[in-house]
């Protein structure tokens, strides 16, 4: 992440994505440099989630090119996966594991420090609690903690503030700001105001 800011790392050119055989967005172009953030706006069904999944290498690219430092992402999805931390609609948590166990296994898969991640999202008092008993907002915090594991340059956040309380939103703002200060990039979708400063916006037409 030492590269100087200003040069585009992630670039989308005329990107179109489909889901279930239907084109959900088309003609999406943007450039993202280190430290920058992009907020996706648009009505329900405008394709925000689909675009995020395409950026993650999960969705199907119908047209256009997504490139990382000039190289087509589709040619090496595995290398692209290593650059990404994804916060999806679903928290991807197992109710039987405790918060600490969840993040310890994640850290074995992705690397990173569990204790730092737990501290950063303010979950220390609940570290030994099973995910089963957590509230929706607390689960969302565990999912936020996962972003911090393994130093991925690109964060893809799908409605990150859903279920979070005011303190949770502030936490989100803090970890996103720290991530960008380290040279990380963020693409987020939301209906609400996100606690992300100096973000560019991209409006998707329904």
């Amino acid at each position: 992440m030492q590269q100087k800011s200003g040069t585009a790392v992630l670039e989308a050119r005329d990107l179109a994505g489909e889901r279930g055989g239907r084109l959900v967005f088309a003609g999406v172009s943007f450039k993202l440099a280190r430290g920058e953030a992009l907020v996706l706006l648009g009505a329900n069904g405008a394709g925000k989630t689909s675009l995020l999944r395409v950026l993650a290498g999960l969705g199907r690219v119908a047209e256009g090119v997504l490139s990382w430092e000039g190289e087509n992402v589709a040619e090496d999805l595995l290398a692209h996966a290593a650059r990404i931390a994804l916060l999806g609609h679903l928290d991807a948590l197992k109710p039987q594991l405790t918060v600490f166990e969840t993040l310890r296994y994640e850290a074995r898969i992705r690397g990173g420090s569990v204790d730092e991640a737990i501290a950063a999202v303010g979950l220390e008092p609940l570290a030994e609690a099973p995910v089963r008993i957590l509230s929706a907002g607390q689960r969302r915090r565990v999912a936020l903690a996962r972003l911090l594991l393994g130093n991925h340059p690109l964060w893809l956040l799908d409605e990150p503030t859903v279920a979070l309380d005011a303190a949770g939103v502030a936490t989100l703002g803090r970890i996103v700001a720290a991530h960008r200060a380290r040279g990380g990039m963020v693409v987020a979708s939301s209906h609400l105001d996100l606690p992300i400063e100096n973000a560019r916006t991209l409006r998707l037409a329904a």
Partner: protein
Amino acid sequence: MTAWFGLVARDLALARRNAGDTLAAVAFFLLACGLFPFAVGPDPMVLARIAAGVVWVAALLAALLPLDRLVGGDYEDGTLDQLLVSGLHPAAVAVAKAAVHWLATGVPILLAAPFGAVMLALPVRAIPVLVAALALGTAVLSLLGIAGAALTLGARRGGVLLPLLILPLTIPVLIFGAAAVEAASVGLAVGPQLAMLGALLAAALPLAPLAAGIALRSAVE
């Protein structure tokens, strides 16, 4: 590799917390074996004649039980998305899932197999061969199973579709597995049958995870 073992360790921990699934598979296996004496009568000669086949079919069916939850849960709660952006190759994810299925379902059935065999009056000298053959056969089934489970992800009635897809593919395993046990029970050499089972495992080991990996990727699209 650390990442792969991390995934296996997590899924094994989950399997331990959901021990009921393993118990259900073992109980199903023993019950299925135990039903045959009631159906065909208690004549030890008749039972010993069919024991090898019955134990094999019961073991395959029992191992099928937890298959649809193998990746189904991960698909529904978003874990599969996370695994596919974790940097692990999708085929490696599939191998991990198959390994966990074998350890959490295949091995317990292996341990129960001698009891099932004794209930069916299988000659005791055939039991070591039965366990060895089942060890290879259930591993093949785990690999075929993950491919089938990945292919039926998101399908309506995937749980019904899955056995229809997998069971025909297990026929070669069944033929050589039951033949090995029968040969052992009459004191013949079992090397060729076990070698064939090993060959089936060697073929399934690269092919099934590759197919499963592609299916996992297309399931999340």
